C-alpha cells in the first residue's frame, strides 16, 4: 500500500512538473519563501505587518512600494529594478519598500496592504498584477498604481501601465550579433515562449539579415528561467551546432549559457537580457538587451516628484530611450586581442547607427509573433 502510494506520488509530482514545465509556470516560482520581505530599511518587516497603524510621518516624503513576483538576484528584470531603486534612494532620498510576493494569493494581499497603508505609489512587475490592480485601484484613488510590463488600459486616473517594444532592441541586437559572428549561425535561448519573446527572436533574425543575408537563428526554449545547468547544456549544444553569438531571454538560465560561451574553444559571444552581465565574462558578453524596467521605475518616480503623472498605457521603446541595447566600453578587459576589440567597436558603431534609424523612424521593426 505504501509502495503504491509512493509510485502514485512520484507520478503526481512528475505530472505537476510536466504541467508547469510547458505551461505559463516559467515566470512563477515555488511557494518557498513566500511573502518574504526584503526591506530596504530595517523596519520593513514590522511596517508591512501592522496594516492598521496610521503612518508615522505625514511629511512630504513619498511612500513608494515595489512588489515583485520573482525573487531578487535573478540577474534580470528584478535586479534591474533593484538597481534603479538604489539610484532613487541616492538621487531623491526616497526609500522604496520591496516585497517579494511569489504566490498568486500573496500578490493581491500585498497590493491591498500597501494601498491600505496609504502608500503614494505602488509599482508591480509582470502580468500577474493586472487583475489585482484592476480590482483594488478604484478603492484607493489617492494611491498611484504603476504596472510594469502590462498592456491594459483601465481608464483609471491613478493607474498607468508600461508596455515594452523589446523587439526594437532585439533587432539592434541582431545587427550587433551578425557583425560579430563569423559563422552566420546565431543562437537564441529563451526561458519560455510568449508573444514578446517570439517577436524578439524574429526581430533578432531580421536585424541580423541586414548585415548578413544568410544569417540563421536557432532558437531553443529551455523551459525555465532558473536552471543554469540546463542553460549550459543548451548553450553548449548551440555552440556545437556552430553558433558563435547567442542571444538570451532567459534570466538565470542565461548564466549557464554564459559559462558555456566562456569555456568554448574559440570566440563565442553572448547578448544577455535585462541586466549587466559583462562582469561575468568581459570577453564574451558583447551586450545586454535591457527592456528598461529599472528606467521605468526611476523615470516614473522622478515624474511624480515633479508632480507629473500620466494615466493609461505608456509604450517603452528605443524611441523614448527607456529600452536600450547596452554595449560595453570595457569589452575584452580580461585579455582579448586588439583585433577583436576593434571588430567589436565597429560592430557597436554599426548597431548604434541602426538604433538611431529606429529612433528617427527610418527603420520600422514590426512585432512578428509567428513562431517557427
Amino acid at each position, binding site marked *: 500500500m*505504501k*509502495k503504491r*502510494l*509512493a*509510485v502514485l*506520488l*512520484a*507520478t503526481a*509530482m*512528475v*505530472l505537476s*512538473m*510536466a504541467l508547469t*514545465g*510547458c505551461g505559463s509556470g516559467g515566470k512563477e*516560482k*515555488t511557494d*518557498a*519563501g513566500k511573502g518574504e520581505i*526584503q526591506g530596504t530599511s530595517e523596519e520593513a518587516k514590522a511596517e508591512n505587518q501592522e496594516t492598521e497603524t496610521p503612518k508615522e510621518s505625514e511629511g512630504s516624503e513619498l511612500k513608494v512600494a515595489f512588489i515583485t513576483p520573482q*525573487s*531578487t*538576484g*535573478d*540577474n534580470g528584470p*528584478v*535586479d534591474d529594478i533593484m538597481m534603479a531603486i538604489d539610484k532613487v534612494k541616492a538621487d531623491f532620498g526616497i526609500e522604496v519598500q520591496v516585497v517579494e510576493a511569489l504566490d498568486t494569493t500573496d500578490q493581491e494581499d500585498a497590493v491591498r496592504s500597501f494601498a491600505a497603508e496609504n502608500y503614494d505609489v505602488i509599482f508591480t512587475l509582470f502580468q500577474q498584477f493586472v487583475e489585482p490592480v484592476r480590482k483594488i485601484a478604484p478603492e484607493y484613488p489617492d494611491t498611484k498604481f504603476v504596472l510594469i510590463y502590462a498592456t491594459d488600459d483601465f481608464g483609471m486616473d491613478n493607474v498607468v501601465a508600461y508596455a515594452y517594444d523589446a523587439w526594437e532592441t532585439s533587432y539592434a541586437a541582431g545587427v550587433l550579433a551578425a557583425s560579430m559572428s563569423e559563422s552566420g549561425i546565431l543562437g537564441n535561448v529563451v526561458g519560455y*515562449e510568449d508573444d514578446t519573446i517570439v517577436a524578439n527572436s524574429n526581430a533578432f533574425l531580421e536585424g541580423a539579415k541586414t548585415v548578413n543575408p544568410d544569417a540563421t537563428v*536557432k*532558437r*531553443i*526554449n*529551455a*523551459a*525555465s528561467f*532558473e*536552471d*543554469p*545547468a*540546463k*542553460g*549550459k*547544456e*543548451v548553450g*553548449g*549544444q548551440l555552440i*556545437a551546432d556552430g553558433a558563435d553569438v547567442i542571444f538570451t531571454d532567459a534570466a*538565470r538560465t542565461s*548564466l*549557464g549559457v554564459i*559559462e558555456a560561451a566562456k569555456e568554448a574553444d574559440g570566440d563565442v559571444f553572448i547578448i544577455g537580457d535585462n541586466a549587466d552581465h559583462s*562582469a*561575468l*565574462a568581459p570577453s564574451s558578453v558583447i551586450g545586454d538587451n535591457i527592456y528598461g524596467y529599472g528606467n521605468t521605475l526611476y523615470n516614473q518616480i522622478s515624474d511624480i516628484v515633479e508632480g507629473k503623472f500620466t494615466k493609461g498605457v505608456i509604450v517603452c521603446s528605443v524611441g523614448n530611450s527607456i529600452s536600450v541595447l547596452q554595449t560595453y566600453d570595457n569589452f575584452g578587459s580580461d585579455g582579448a586581442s586588439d583585433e577583436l576589440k576593434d571588430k567589436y567597436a565597429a560592430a557597436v558603431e554599426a548597431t548604434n547607427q541602426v538604433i538611431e534609424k529606429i529612433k528617427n523612424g527610418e527603420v520600422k521593426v514590426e512585432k512578428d509573433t509567428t*513562431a*517557427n
Partner: protein
Amino acid sequence: MTQLIISMIRCATPILLAALGGIICERVGVFNIALEGMMLFGAFFAIYGSYLSGSAWVGALVAMAVCGAVGFIFVELVENLGAEPTITGIGINTLALGMTTYLMKMVFGEGGSISANDRIAGFERVEIPLVKQIPFLGEIFSGYTPLVYITFILVPVLAFWLYRTHMGINLRAVGEEVHAAQAAGLNVNRFRVLGVMGAGMLCGLAGAHLSLGYVTLFSENMTNGRGFFAYVAVVFGKADPVSVMIAALVFGLADTLSTKVQGNGIPSSLVLMLPYVVTILALMVRSTVAKGEKKHFHINLTKEAKE
C-alpha cells in the same frame, strides 16, 4: 551522434548520482522523496565549502557532510520519532529551498544566484591521456568533470556491495523482510540510519556535481526537479544499480532530445514534454511488469542474490 551521447551522459549524471542514494534508501526500506532537497543542500554547501577553502574537493566533502546530517535528521524523524515519510520528505524539500535561498543572502549577500566569484573553484575537466586519442570513444569517454567518472564507477561498486558482500545482503534483508532480519540478529535501526545517511552523502555529491562540476555557480532552486527524476529512476530500475543507471540515461537522453529536436517545425512546448512523457511511460511499463510478477518491485530480488 557523439554530441548526443556526451550530452546524454552529462544530463544523466546528477540524476544517477542522487538515484544511487535513492537505491540505498529503497533497499533499507525507507521511503525517501527528499532526494531533491538533499541535492539542493548539497549544491549550496559545495559552493560554500569551495568558497571557504578554494578547493572543489573540499566543497564536495562539505556537501557530503551536511547532506549526511540532513539524512540523519530525516531518518531519525521517520524511524525513531514515527513521522510520516512523505510529509517529512516534502518538509525537507521545502526547507532546502527556503534555507539555501536564505543562507545565500546571508553568506554571500546576494539573492538569486552566486556566480563569477573568484574564490569559488569548480571541478576541472579530466582529459584521459590515452583514451582521448581514440577517435569515437575518446570523445565519449574523455573530458568530463571528475564526479561523472566517480558516478559511473559507483554503479558497479554499489551493485557488488549489495549483491556480493555480507553487509549488502544484510542491508537488503532489512528492506525486504524486516522480521527475518531482526530474527537473524541484525540491528535494523542502525542499518536504516546509516543507509539513509549514506544516501544523503550521495545526494550531497550529486548537488556538488551540479554546482561545481556541471556549472560553477549556485542559483535558487537549481536542482529544478532532478531529485524527483532520481526517485522515479529508482522505482523504474527496481532499485537495482545497473537498471537504475539505464533509467537515468533514458531520462538524460529525453532531456537532451527535448532541446535538440527543437527548431524543426515542431512546437517547442510539445518537444519539452518529452522527459515527462518518458517518465510517465516508464512508470506505467514498470507497474505493468510489476503486476505480472505479482510481487512488489523491491521485495523481489532474492533470486538475484542466489545467483
